[in-house]
């Protein structure tokens, strides 16, 4: 249950490989079904604009899941993520086209504990704007 990345190979400031994930309307429908979150603002343009949103937006939890992928892809084990917090700052608006939106995840090791745990500070953007803030993942390294 530990990562492939060894604590000895990581330092404060170590950067994770940058990842970019496309998010289409079809992805939102699939995520709604898998998660059970059928809030219409994630699939219905009419409802989304009626409540004052610029359009259909991605589930915050989908954006959070994508950011976690960037962390566990680096760590080498999805089971190594022990603590994970995000604040949903700005919605990811997903246009009704084949390209959708793009979510870019950057990460940097912000702290290393004696217990082999690394805190990764994440910067998650879409369309050049930060969509998550205070996004931090703690990973148990090998």
């Amino acid at each position, binding site marked *: 249950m530990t990562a492939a990345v060894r604590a000895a190979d990581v330092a404060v400031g170590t950067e994770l490989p940058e990842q970019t994930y496309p998010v289409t309307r079809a992805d939102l429908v699939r*995520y709604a079904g*898998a998660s059970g979150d059928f809030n219409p603002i994630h699939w219905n343009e009419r409802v989304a604009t009626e409540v004052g949103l610029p359009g259909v937006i991605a589930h915050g939890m989908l954006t959070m899941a994508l950011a*976690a992928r960037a962390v*566990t892809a680096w760590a080498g084990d*999805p089971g190594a993520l022990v603590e*994970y917090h995000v604040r*949903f700052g700005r919605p990811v608006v997903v246009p009704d086209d084949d390209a959708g939106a793009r979510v870019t995840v950057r990460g940097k090791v912000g702290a290393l504990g004696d217990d082999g745990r690394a805190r990764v500070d994440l910067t998650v953007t879409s369309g050049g704007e930060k969509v998550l803030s205070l996004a931090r993942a703690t990973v148990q390294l090998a």
Partner: protein
Amino acid sequence: MALDPALVGRGYPPSAVYEVGRQKIAEFADAIGEADPVHRDTDAARAAGHPDVIAPPTFAIALTLSAAGVVVEDPDVALDYSRVVHGEQRFTHHRPIRAGDRLVATPTIEAVRSIGGNDLLTTRVDVATEDGEPVCSATSMLVARGTA
């Protein structure tokens, strides 16, 4: 109406048992585009040190969201769900959720605040096996816009 600070600490009964299916884990992994075989292939999961296929780190939301819904629908809380947005989310994992787990989710109100006309409700949902082994906690801060 602003939320009553006396709600802090209020607990709710455990949910019905949620049985974690391997197909559900695979479906969730597909939905977030995660291709790691530890979510689908028992041998790969065992090689990585897990007893069975494990769920992605945010999978718990599939059961904790409905558990937190019990709090939102508490007559003393009664947030207007159409005004609610997800403000913050935290997961603390004691171990990964895995196929075959029989889980119960127990919500507690951790904090209430009213800021700028918005009600902020923080609910912690503790997830354990039905035998009482702690698995994870999911803390959600919900913002009800313009209700305070």
